[in-house]
């Protein structure tokens, strides 16, 4: 075989697999989570714009209530605990799914969903309480941005709960097929990402907002 024949041959003899896709298209198990990661990144950008909005409007209270008067650290601590715990149980669900253990997977997913629901319930209570106190989002630019930032995260959690329910039904009906386990992986990426964003909200909104 001459060198020219090698040039039009079909082998890449001796070329290293660099992990950069030089050896042809990657498998679905790599491509699907990768694409979902990108979507999560775009979601992070979305939240960063909301954080920027909140940061620039936090003092625009228009003579209405301020952060110190509104936020309750104890309530938020319970909220945070519920959500962080749900991340842990979500991880346990993934381990159970890897072992193809139907009952454990369902139980941990259910616990994850319930903890998410507890979080949402407390947030709902907080919102209702604020509106009752005369601090609805229509009161000032600060409150508009607070309700939007925290509410957008809440809407994401709601979507996550819907997804968890759908996935539970799907695993129940179809078992641990390859593409369904991939979907479960995407769900867990989504759920953990919401946790990361909540940590930022907890710090920037509630902790800084309740400094004496």
């Amino acid at each position, binding site marked *: 075989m001459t060198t020219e024949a090698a040039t039009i041959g079909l082998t890449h003899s001796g070329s290293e697999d660099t992990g950069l896709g030089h050896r042809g298209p990657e498998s679905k198990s790599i491509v699907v989570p990768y694409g979902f990661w990108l979507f999560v990144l775009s979601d992070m950008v979305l939240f960063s*714009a909301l954080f920027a909005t909140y940061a620039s*409007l936090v003092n625009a209270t228009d003579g209405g209530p301020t952060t110190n008067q509104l936020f309750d650290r104890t309530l938020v601590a319970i909220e945070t605990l519920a959500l962080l715990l749900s991340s842990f149980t979500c991880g346990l669900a993934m381990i159970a799914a890897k072992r193809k253990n139907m009952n454990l997977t369902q139980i941990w997913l259910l616990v994850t969903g319930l903890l998410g629901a507890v979080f949402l319930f407390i947030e709902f209570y907080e919102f209702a309480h604020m509106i009752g106190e005369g601090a609805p989002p229509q009161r000032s*630019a600060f409150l508009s941005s607070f309700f939007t930032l925290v509410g957008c995260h809440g809407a994401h959690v709601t979507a996550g709960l819907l997804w968890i329910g759908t996935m539970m039904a799907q695993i129940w009906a179809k078992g641990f097929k390859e593409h369904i386990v991939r979907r479960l992986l995407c769900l867990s990426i989504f759920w953990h990402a919401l946790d990361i964003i909540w940590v930022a909200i907890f710090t920037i909104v509630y902790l800084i907002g309740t400094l004496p």
Partner: protein
Amino acid sequence: MSVIFGKLTWDAIPFHEPIPLITSAVVLAAVAAIAVWVWRNGWWPYLRDEYITSTDHKRIGIMYIVLALLMLVRGFADAIMMRLQQSMAIGASQGYLTPEHYNQIFSAHGTIMIFFVAMPFVIGFMNFVVPLQLGVRDVAFPTMNNVSFWLTASGALLINLSLFIGEFARTGWLAFPPLSEKEFSPGVGVDYYLVALQISGVGTVLTSVNFVTTILKIRAPGMSYFRMPVFCWTSLASNLLILAAFPVLTVTLGLLMLDRYLDFHFFTNDGGGNSMLYMNLIWVWGHPEVYILALPAFGIYSEVAATFSGKPLFGYRSMVFATLAICIISFMVWLHHFFTMGAGANINAIFGIASMVIGIPTGVKIYNWLFTMYGGRVRFTVPMHYLIGFMLTFVVGGLTGVLLAIPPVDFVVHNSLFLVAHFHQVIIGGVVFALMAGYTYWFPKAFGFTLDERLGKAVFWCWFIGFHLAFMPSYLLGFYGATRRMQHIPDPSWAPWLHLELFGAVIIGAGIVLTVVQLLYSIKTREQRLDVTGDPWDGRTLEWLTLSPPPHYNFAVLPDVHGEEAYWTRKQTAIKMDQLIKEPDYQPIEMPVSTPVGVICAFFASVCGFAVIWHIWWLAILGLIGAFAVFVWYAWQDEHEHIVPVDEVRTNARERRRIRMEHLHSLSQST
């Protein structure tokens, strides 16, 4: 009644305004006529199976470009109406358009030309070309690709619906508050704008996820990063920009919607709202958007320059680095869109300098194209005309951009026709010329026959001359003090320039008409212009390796890439050795099935959007439930692929090899 129909009443139909009414009637008649014509010829099943529900990236790309061309006609109609008004309404005359109507027209023109012409056109090329150039069978997520297209189409549908039912925004193409707030724009116009862009924006973000994944993870064996064609690089940069910029647009429009629908106070004059925040947010998206359009355009020019100069692209690596430099710097210049809003001298200076710096990588690119042509055997085809016309036009537009980047200069000419002339020069001279070049260049690959050269050149000259007549006087008028968006011209001495600009717009219109003529004539005479070899331009990248049009799986066997110009290397070696590569071992191919999920999703999105615009809440909720149900229904299906049997692959591949062998002999005799 308001519970059932929200704000929708018979008053929403413009019975007393002849222009929208006649337009609506004509459009509806045309749509009906086309539908009947398609049905009479029995083409519905073909359209349904091969296009509407298709997950094939080539079909989706073609649909994007068809959408863009249709919307170009609509956007241009707006443009010519504005030009006509500005050449009539001078001094004592008031022209033929009321201020309310005129304001809707320039808002619709800007919105449509950017979001529903330039974007789908560029994304259409990405869809059609990128997987072929990377030597693979499809994008990473074919079904999502179909959904993306239909969501874009849904946004376009809603914008055009505003012509028949209700009104469009009168706020300019970016709907600045406080003018776009409910207090000053109580009608549904701004809501049409917001909802249409939200829906198509979701489609665009999904597209970017799709293409970044495709380019980084799905390439033919041996196709390392520095072997990718420049168009793939620029598509990657463009999609990274979409991924990082479009969520900001979603937020910005979302906040304005909350202001309008629920009385929030983000950008209002009262309640502590801050309309400056909107400017910052919208331009954090808006400036990258310019490069989202321009970078793929530069990629098209790179392909054209190399192919028709008959040599590899000069400075390939510098081209890639320039692309990535533009990609990053484009996020650091947004404030130059509002120097005059008082951010302070130091901030203005920083953003002014950053805006000038972005001219450096752009300059690198221009020199690369020039040096690619230098010493090459240049063939003056239609795409080459566009490349040369682009370099002449774009450099001037770029220089006026550098002028505008100097804050003191911007204080003088901001919001004047000088600015309008600048951005039309870079968008038409940069993006539109590239789109027309790409349209001519890849047409034979898509349909198997070339477009007529003579008519193509006529179209080019119409665009080139028409553009300069229509916009160069605007630089002067800007210096004279003419502001943008004027429904009435107070100074009669500007009249000759305005009439010249109308003449230029008419010439551009002739170019658009000639584009249609060219298409029809080329279809009629396609027998004489068939592209049998799949390589009509003696191309250098992998899309010319397959037949024209390619089989739906693109390649029987994924091409094996050696060297920087994958196809050129292969072709030259084959000519030298006078033989093709040894016949590979064919395998059955797994391909995605077509799916109605995109159309159904977009249908529910349109219904939901329409309901939100008119405050028909029950229908909006129904639309959302419907969309979720479709989603679950799709997720419940197990089989998203079908297998192309190995015999079919082998038969097609052998036929292609035979044709390529003939092509090879004719090439080796000619060299």
